[in-house]
């Protein structure tokens, strides 16, 4: 039994992992850690499905090198590392250190992050290291620094529970931070007078139980909060003493806010919400002292992201609402270690231990501590610029760790092209088949969750351990080891780490180093954790920094009302509102918004392998208002092409009135390994916030048009299928099932020989049992292959989109032996028992389908989520699907007597 931390979102839940016993060595048991402060025993569906993602199928177990023809071969670590070091040395000698760059990730542990940052900034002497955290919360970092003088999240999750009003801005908390959402909802059940407001253009699952949803126009947040600041001033809601003694800049901030936010009607127009609703929100905020404003990607991923952050913080500073229980601005981060990366300086514009690159004294401090030959003198290139520099040849060597920029960066096709032009691309990952690893010269096998060992810091400054409880597979190694090995080969001292606790110790000592000196004071101080030996490091329990002395930790910052600008004061920052950079026009009339879905994580390289997680929303989709769909001439459920000036993709249309007019939403997850053409990154405009460099993922002008196809198909196979170039269907998606793969297909032109096509695709030239119903009068083709009663494969093709129930086929593929009735059903293309169609999965934990839930609601007259849980178990484990169950109850209620 091992206490560790979940590797997904920034909530950072504690997990107890119990590897199976001798009888079932592969049966890893995953539970929430009841003693972890973040989750207190709860887990969401992604965390609960962790055991399904630790298998070795598809794992990269040895280093790979590709020659000029793209042929990959397995090599020894020595050879791979020699190659990396030699090429890097040559490039530095020829072009200088600025020709080398690293692109790392919030998936890295703090120790990996620390070592790579040390190498780049202290020894290579460049700051060309950036991280995918740039894509999710760098605007929060920049905003925090402007307001507080340091990147600080003052409060904690408990504040959300204690608050009387929680404002969720640009955050689909219910899906993206499920455990925080559940804690919030639980606290509201205990105190029904608590109010929850959601500010989001979309009506998301998070809005289901909110008291108010402000469906603001994309990018209008600064108008909203400037309006609030003005309203607070006009109504005398100000903490005069606090503003006078502990802040600066209030007058300037107010003057700018008044310019646009002075008239409610003008704000209402800018935000696209009615005056009355705006007034109601402002009044609620004004009269509630204990208010927490939670903000996430909807705020950060914007060309004015930093201003948005400050416009929120301004309102809290103006009213003195921070530093006490139940109040404060609260940035909730996307990744498990986004904050750890910030602590070690993983961003191109920071140094280490919350010290600044552009402060000579800070540079000197770090260089002295490290004893390094050099120190980066100016900020390096931020993610989008960094790949630009790769594209135009300024950067010639790039090492990517634990992230998939070919999928996740804006203008992602150009990113791929950049990698293809780059002399040396090194990728450290768990898998060789990611879209990014496919472009690498050298691919290094990294350790995954459960194998690697180190620390992470979650959104509430809680530092906890991620531990190894599985053996390192093959020759996979920790990233810090690979980096240290390259450093050694480059002839650098200071990388003699043998264990992660040694790295952590150095990191902790640096945080304390001269922390009391004038001008050097910083909140990030974990000196109390320095000096831990391997055993002490293993025993480290979750704690919230600062930890200046052993045993002391800090649940809440700013209680002493001291901030970290030179004068010890906080700053209100003038924030003049700016519209998103690229406006819609006649050609690209819709705003593309991107985001996460409930059961997938980032680019699906891990969660895509868990059958349980693939079932909720199996296909890439685009959401659109039904009326907008009508105007675009596209049909609900059909395939559509979404295109911007930068790229295009194909996905299935889901019409929903939850999506505002003139906008579309596309999830960020699908990659080229899982779908024919569904990387939304290719469409996203490469526009960034001028201060934070965070891309504007939430606002790209696009158009939507039909993607006409002539046939539809679903194919099940026990092994992966290869679609040969020209034979590949126009559309395909590969969905992981339990012991099988399901392919949703659609094609153009007539399939001349469906019989031959499916046999060669499935590789069954001589099959033991091949059930086949050739094209019937409706043009449908049905075939299934069995061996000793077990289904091996099936193929259903039709000119119409009506194909057999997937939940039924999924079940048949789970059977060791299909029955006579099943065989009849396979030939008919539908179950002989209609009850077999449980519908699309709603509850992933217990695999409960939509139809099952609706039947239960109808048959038992259920009116509550709890009732549904008692009846069919749905929603009783992680609870992530409860908003959807609530919607189904409503749907059933509406259908009754309709």
């Amino acid at each position, binding site marked *: 039994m091992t206490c560790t931390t979940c590797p997904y979102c920034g909530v950072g839940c504690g997990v107890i992992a119990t590897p199976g016993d001798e009888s079932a060595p592969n049966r890893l048991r995953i539970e929430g850690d009841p003693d972890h402060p973040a989750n207190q025993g709860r887990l969401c569906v992604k965390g609960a499905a962790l055991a399904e993602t630790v298998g070795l199928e598809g794992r990269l177990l040895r280093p790979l090198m590709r020659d000029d023809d793209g042929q990959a071969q397995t090599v020894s670590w020595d050879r791979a590392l020699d190659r990396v070091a030699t090429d890097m040395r040559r490039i530095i000698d020829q072009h200088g250190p600025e020709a080398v760059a690293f692109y790392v990730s919030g998936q890295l542990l703090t120790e990996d992050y620390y070592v790579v940052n040390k190498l780049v900034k202290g020894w290579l002497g460049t700051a060309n290291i950036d991280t995918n955290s740039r894509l999710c919360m760098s605007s929060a970092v920049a905003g925090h620094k402007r307001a507080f003088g340091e990147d600080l999240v003052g409060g904690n999750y408990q504040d959300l529970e204690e608050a009387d009003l929680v404002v969720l801005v640009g955050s689909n908390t219910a899906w993206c931070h499920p455990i925080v959402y559940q804690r919030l909802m639980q606290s509201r059940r205990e105190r029904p007078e608590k109010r929850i407001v959601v500010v989001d253009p979309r009506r998301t699952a998070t809005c289901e139980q909110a008291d108010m949803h402000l469906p603001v126009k994309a990018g209008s947040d600064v108008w909203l909060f400037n309006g609030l600041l003005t309203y607070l001033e006009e109504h005398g809601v100000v903490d005069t003493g606090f503003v006078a003694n502990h802040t600066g800049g209030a007058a300037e901030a107010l003057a700018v806010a008044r310019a646009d936010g002075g008239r409610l*009607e*003008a704000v*209402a*127009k800018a935000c*696209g*919400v*009615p005056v*009355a*609703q705006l007034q109601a929100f402002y009044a609620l905020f004004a009269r509630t002292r204990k208010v927490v404003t939670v903000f996430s990607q909807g705020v950060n991923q914007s060309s004015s992201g930093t201003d948005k952050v400050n416009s929120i913080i301004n309102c809290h500073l103006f009213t003195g609402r921070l530093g006490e229980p139940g109040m404060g601005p609260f940035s909730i981060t996307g990744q498990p270690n986004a904050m750890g990366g910030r602590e070690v300086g993983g961003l191109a514009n920071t140094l280490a231990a919350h010290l600044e690159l552009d402060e000579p004294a800070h540079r000197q401090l770090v260089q002295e501590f490290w004893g390094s030959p050099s120190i980066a003198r100016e900020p390096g290139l931020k993610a989008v610029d960094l790949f630009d520099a790769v594209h135009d040849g300024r950067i010639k060597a790039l090492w990517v760790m634990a992230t998939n920029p070919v999928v996740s960066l804006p203008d992602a096709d150009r990113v791929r092209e950049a990698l293809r032009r780059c002399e040396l691309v090194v990728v450290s990952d768990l898998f060789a088949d990611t879209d990014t690893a496919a472009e690498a010269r050298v691919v290094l096998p990294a350790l995954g969750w459960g194998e690697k060992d180190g620390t992470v810091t979650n959104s509430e400054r809680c530092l906890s351990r991620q531990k190894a409880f599985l053996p390192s597979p093959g020759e996979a190694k920790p990233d810090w080891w690979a980096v240290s090995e390259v450093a050694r080969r480059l002839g650098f001292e200071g990388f003699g780490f043998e264990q992660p606790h040694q790295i952590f110790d150095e990191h902790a000592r640096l945080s304390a180093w001269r922390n009391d000196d004038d001008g050097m004071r910083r909140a990030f101080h974990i000196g109390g954790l320095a000096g831990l030996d391997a055993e002490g490091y293993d025993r480290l329990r979750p704690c919230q920094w600062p930890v200046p002395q052993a045993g002391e930790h800090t649940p809440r910052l700013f209680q002493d009302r001291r901030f970290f600008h030179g004068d010890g004061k906080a700053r209100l920052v003038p924030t003049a509102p700016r519209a998103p950079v690229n406006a819609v026009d006649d050609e690209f009339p819709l705003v593309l918004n991107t985001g996460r879905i409930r059961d997938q994580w980032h680019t699906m390289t891990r969660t895509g392998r868990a059958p349980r997680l693939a079932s909720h929303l199996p296909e890439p989709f685009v959401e659109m*208002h*039904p*009326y*907008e769909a*009508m*105007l675009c001439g596209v049909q*609900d459920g059909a395939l559509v092409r979404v295109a911007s000036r930068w790229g295009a993709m194909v996905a299935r249309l889901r019409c929903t*009135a939850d999506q*505002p*007019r003139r906008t579309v939403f596309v999830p960020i997850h699908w990659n080229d390994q899982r779908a024919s053409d569904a990387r939304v990154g290719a469409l996203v405009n490469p526009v960034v916030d001028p201060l934070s460099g965070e891309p504007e993922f939430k606002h790209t002008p696009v158009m939507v048009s039909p993607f006409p196809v002539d046939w539809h198909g679903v194919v099940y196979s026990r092994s992966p299928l290869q679609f040969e170039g020209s034979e590949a269907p126009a559309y395909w998606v590969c969905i992981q099932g339990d012991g099988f793969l399901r392919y949703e297909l659609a094609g153009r032109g007539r399939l001349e020989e469906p019989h031959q096509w499916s046999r060669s695709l499935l590789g069954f030239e001589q099959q033991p049992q091949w059930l086949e119903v050739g094209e019937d009068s409706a043009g449908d083709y049905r075939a299934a292959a069995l061996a000793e009663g077990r289904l091996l494969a099936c193929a259903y093709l039709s000119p119409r989109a009506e194909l057999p129930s997937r939940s039924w086929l999924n079940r048949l593929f789970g059977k060791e032996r299909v029955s006579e009735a099943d065989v009849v059903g396979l030939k008919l293309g539908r179950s002989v028992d209609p009850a077999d169609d449980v519908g699309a999965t709603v509850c992933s934990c217990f695999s409960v389908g939509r139809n099952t839930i609706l039947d239960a609601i109808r048959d038992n007259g259920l009116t509550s989520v709890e009732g549904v849980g008692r009846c069919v178990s749905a929603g009783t484990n992680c609870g992530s699907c409860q908003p959807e169950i609530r919607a189904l109850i409503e749907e059933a209620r*509406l259908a009754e*007597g*309709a």
Partner: protein
Amino acid sequence: MKQERLVVIGNGMVGQKYLDHLVADRLHHRYQVTVLCAEPRPAYDRVHLSEFFTGRSSEDLSLVPERFFERHGLELRLSEGADSIDLENKTIRTAKGATLDYDKLVLATGSYPFVPPVPGRGRPSCLVYRTIEDLEAIMASGRDAEVGVVIGGGLLGLEAAKALRDIGLQTHVVEFAPRLMAVQVDDGGGALLRRKIEQLGVFVHTGMNTTEIIDGEFYRHRLNFTDGEHLEADLVVFSAGIRPQDTLARDAGLAVGERGGIVIDNHCRTSDPDVYAIGECALWGGRIYGLVAPGYEMARAAVSHLRHRCDETLAVPFTGADMSTKLKLMGVDVASLGDAHASTPGACCYRYEDERKQIYKKLVVSEDGRRLLGGVLVGDAREYNTLLQLMLNDMALPETPEQLILPAGQGAAPALDVTRLPDSATLCQCQNVTKGALCQAIADGHCDLAAIKQCTGAATGCGSCEPLVQTLLDTSGVAADTLAEVAT
């Protein structure tokens, strides 16, 4: 013998119902029938008009069976209304200049939306909500609009608001009265209805009197109200009630009411015995019926009279209609029965309200507490049919009438005892099917719901009578079994 000529002006829901009855009674063989229809398409379901926005096409909404006119030899002239009627010479001049002779004439011209005389009402994108063409105009205008407002918070106004919300506009409803659906619901029900409608994202402004519509500062229009308040919007839809479309009749010299409406008798005859008027253009007993069910009753009465023209004592007359109604507005159940406002002298009320579940129910009973006079149901209208039957059939109420509206398990009364209903009780209001007709169908061997629906048409409209029909089926089923047992 020369076939007589029958002309029907108007092919709306009621006009079509008239033709349905005509054909069912085989009267179309006796007359040469011409139908004038000012709209470009034959009758469609105006009640479900807003579904046009959620993807139902005009074909889906059509009320005319395929090839109805050809099959029965009726002449339909689309986009051709009537311009004038010459009662003396029995001729009609059509909008396209043709002259038609008639022997019998039916006016089913319906109504038009009333647009209050607010200055600025004729500005572009100030529209009404009545026909598919109106909807198309709303959709076209809504393409680039952000905010829409409906003036009028009645039944149709809320339907129009649903349409605006369906096309993704920020939607407001402005109502002059202090509550929504002022005619059908009381203050308590109106307050709850408002809350529910607001939760659905429609913003409600009651007690507002629009004085003018002028250029907006932020959106296309600005509505000024008497109290100095204002509201801006890109699109304005008037839904302030209907007015009978009686100009044609008035110009021809037929008797019309003081406030409009073609005066008719119990056989739907106008002041000219060869001219009938049915539906929303007709004034019976001094009132206009703005619901479709009474219009259908008039259509039936008019056909019945034509059929029994030789002995009109055999004709089924129109003797007024109950204005009780149950509907779903944006998914919210609302029902209003009889004397919903308890204006009958001595009337007493029972009220039940659950703010958490958002349910409001009111019963209005007679002074002695024995008879149901009316009621209001908001949020949950499942008792509607029971209450309607109790009221229409003047049945005695239980000792404690509040049982009728209390939640089940809280001392609620058992469901209505259908066996106590008289055979003449109309169980299906939409299709006008009586208990007697249903019992006959069951006795004829139609022993399940589907068969009953097929045979009688009951429960095929709004469906609210389905539970009653099922109960009737269940109880008679028991009876049949018992009979069978006795027989063996």
